[in-house]
C-alpha cells in the first residue's frame, strides 16, 4: 500500500512569494494534518482537516491556509513568504478525526525562502 505522499520534495522561493504544498493521504484515511518543522526542533502543528472540515488550527498567522478535497487530499498555502517560513513541512494522515489516532507521516517538503 502506498504511504502518505507529498509534493514537491524541495522548493526554493523568494520573500513575498506564495507557495502551495500538496499531500495525498493513505487510502481510507480521512484526516490530514500539517506540521512545520524548523531545523533542530520538533514539528509544530499547523492544521488538521477531517472529512473536508477544519478540525484544529495551531498558532500560525493567517498567511497560512489549507483545504481538503473530496478525495481527502490536501493543500497547504502560505502567502507573503518570510525567511522564517523556511522549514520542513510535514503532512500526516490518520483514520479518525482525533489527533489521538496514530499519525502516518509523509516524507515532507523542504521549503527554503531566500
Amino acid at each position, binding site marked *: 500500500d502506498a504511504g502518505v505522499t507529498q509534493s514537491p520534495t524541495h522548493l526554493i522561493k523568494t520573500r513575498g512569494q506564495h507557495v502551495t504544498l500538496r499531500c495525498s493521504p493513505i487510502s481510507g484515511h480521512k484526516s490530514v494534518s500539517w506540521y512545520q518543522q524548523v531545523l533542530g526542533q520538533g514539528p509544530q502543528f499547523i492544521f488538521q482537516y477531517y472529512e473536508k472540515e477544519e478540525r484544529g488550527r495551531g498558532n500560525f498567522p493567517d498567511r497560512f491556509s489549507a483545504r481538503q478535497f473530496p478525495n481527502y487530499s490536501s493543500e497547504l498555502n502560505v502567502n507573503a513568504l518570510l525567511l522564517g517560513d523556511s522549514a520542513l513541512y510535514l503532512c500526516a494522515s490518520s483514520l479518525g478525526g482525533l489527533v489521538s489516532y496514530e499519525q502516518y507521516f*509523509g516524507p515532507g517538503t523542504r521549503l527554503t525562502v531566500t
Partner: protein
Amino acid sequence: SQQGEEDPQALSIQEGENATMNCSYKTSINNLQWYRQNSGRGLVHLILIRSNEREKHSGRLRVTLDTSKKSSSLLITASRAADTASYFCATDPVNRRALTFGSGTRLQVQP
C-alpha cells in the same frame, strides 16, 4: 509552543547497550506517543500509551507513563546502529485538538 521536552537532547551509546530517553510535559493529556525521525525525513510512529496506562511494550521498546509527574520514558533495549535517529514524544492534550511534539532526543548508536 512545545508541550513536551525530551531529555537528554543528545545521546551516544555503543551497539548492544540500552538507550533511555525521557519526556516531560505540562498539561493533562489523553495519550502520549513516541515517534522516530531519520535525518530530517518523515516521522514514524513507534508506540502510543494512554493516560490510564503505566507501561507498554513493543518489541525492543518499553514506554512508561507517570501522569502524576507528567513524564514518560522510552527505553530501547539492545540498541543497533540502525536505531540512530531523532526520537520525539508527542502529547494529545486534553481540551486541545493538536498533537504537540517535544524538541527531540538525537540518538547515535556506534557500531
